[in-house]
């Protein structure tokens, strides 16, 4: 039986501010600019937005209602899955749109993450899903994602023989993709040696294994398929979408298999909903907070077997022209960090055929993944 939500909603608008080290404007100004850009792309008056998913530190749906004078928001939510939230928000949007609760859902993320409050500066009050780590791990000096995930990456190297050269392959590939993108923060080509000579952040992660910190906002608008047909751009359908939560979601330490993420549960659900498999995917946007995360997700989503992610990236398969181009915009590693909402924007451009120099010829089906907190995962499959 066809999944009742398959292709029922579509991405009808995308918006991205410039990605930079210093936007020169306030967090809220940047967020309002991102919101407006997505509405402009959709050809939609912002007052028509009646569903808002706001997952940005600082901004809430009320900020958008206030500043755009939106008269009647019928649905507002804030997912708590860290970097898995933007892709997971597509599931939320699909469900509420299909249920007729509202007509246009705008999902938005981003802020002055580089020139404003940075991750290392302390996180203020820890969100509830971080409380176990705050009690037991922060006193040991564990504060930031690089520290949470480094032992996972080392475990992957130990169990599967994954190498620094393979980490570098992800970094080098994505920098090449970013070199083709005029809204990418890092566009100078790099080599495997550049990767190896970059300083340690948390061994086994070097600087060039880590995502950027970015001032920037990205937003996506979704509508039901019947409405989407009459909008400015051809619709990009949400064919499959799912979220998955890992075993022991509040502490990586207690997980039987440390390198198995929530996407392992989400991917089969998203594929089944869309009625496609890994071989049908033309282009992918995988959450790349670290190079290792890309390798691990290639495996967990089923593009290759467990332990084969390293050889896959080293073979060139994930480079433009390869069998599965990954992060053709440069990703969080080289374009900018807006929690993967930029991946959704890029997949939409790929399926509209407007990805410019990074266009994957005749791309019809794209896969997106999100990864956040202690292994939360989300997967979406879009098609034109």
């Amino acid at each position: 039986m066809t999944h009742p939500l398959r292709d029922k909603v579509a991405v009808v608008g995308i918006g991205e501010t410039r990605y930079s080290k210093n936007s020169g404007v306030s967090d809220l100004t940047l967020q309002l600019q991102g919101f407006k850009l997505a509405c402009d792309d959709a050809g939609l008056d912002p007052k028509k937005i009646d569903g808002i998913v706001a997952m940005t530190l600082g901004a809430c749906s009320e900020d958008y209602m206030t500043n755009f004078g939106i008269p009647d928001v019928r649905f507002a939510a804030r997912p708590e899955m860290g970097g898995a939230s933007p892709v997971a928000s597509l599931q939320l949007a699909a469900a509420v749109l299909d249920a007729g609760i509202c007509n246009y859902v705008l999902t938005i993320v981003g802020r002055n993450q580089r020139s404003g409050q940075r991750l290392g500066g302390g996180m203020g009050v820890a969100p509830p899903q971080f409380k176990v780590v705050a009690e037991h791990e922060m006193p040991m000096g564990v504060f930031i994602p690089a520290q949470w995930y480094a032992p996972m990456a080392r475990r992957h190297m130990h169990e599967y023989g994954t190498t620094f050269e393979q980490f570098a392959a992800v970094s080098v590939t994505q920098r090449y993709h970013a070199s083709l993108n005029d809204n990418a923060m890092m566009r100078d080509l790099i080599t495997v040696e550049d990767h190896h000579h970059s300083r340690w952040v948390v061994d086994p992660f070097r600087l060039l294994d880590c995502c950027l910190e970015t001032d920037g906002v990205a937003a996506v608008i979704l509508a039901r398929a019947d409405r989407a047909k009459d909008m400015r751009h051809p619709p990009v359908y949400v064919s499959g979408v799912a979220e998955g939560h890992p075993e022991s979601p509040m502490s990586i330490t207690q997980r039987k298999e440390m390198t198995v993420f929530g996407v392992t549960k989400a991917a089969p659900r998203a594929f089944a909903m869309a009625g496609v498999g890994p071989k049908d995917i033309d282009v992918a946007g995988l959450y790349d907070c670290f190079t290792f995360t890309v390798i691990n997700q290639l495996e967990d989503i089923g593009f290759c077997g467990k332990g084969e992610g390293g050889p896959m990236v080293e073979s060139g398969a994930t480079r433009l022209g390869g069998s599965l181009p990954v992060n053709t915009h440069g990703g969080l590693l080289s374009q900018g960090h807006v929690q993967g909402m930029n991946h959704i924007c890029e997949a939409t451009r790929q399926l509209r055929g407007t990805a410019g120099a990074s266009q994957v010829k005749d791309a019809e089906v794209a896969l997106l993944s999100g990864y956040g907190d202690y292994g939360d995962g989300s997967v979406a499959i879009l098609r034109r």
Partner: protein
Amino acid sequence: MTTVTTGQAQQYAKPLPRATPDSEPYWQHLKEHRLHIQRCTGCGKFRMYPRPMCDQCYSFEHEWVPASGKGTIYSWGVVHQPVHPAWREEFPFAIVEVELEEGVRLRATMVDVPSEQLSIGMPVEIVYDDVTDEVTLPRFRRAL
């Protein structure tokens, strides 16, 4: 059992664990230089970190049982960049994940092994670090 003291009570500037009613006995035992972990009295399952109920049989009944304090390194990472100012003098330092003999794991630091000598599977044992008069943190050293 061995004790080390890395903190000097007056000027200890690192974050301290804030015990909850459910974890209080864990920290209290550490203060007495004993590692005790929760075991469900319904089905016998060990659990970590401390919490009210058993995910296997849903029992709220549990006991605090002495753990051997011995285990092996499951994985680790070496922190090279300051995040919190109180660690500024200590970089680089290794964060280890220790798998205890009882099957649960702990994230902690080592007191005696330089990070270049760490390896997965290395046998380690607990050391008690009285960082303040009130708080003792678990740390590990190479087991003989």
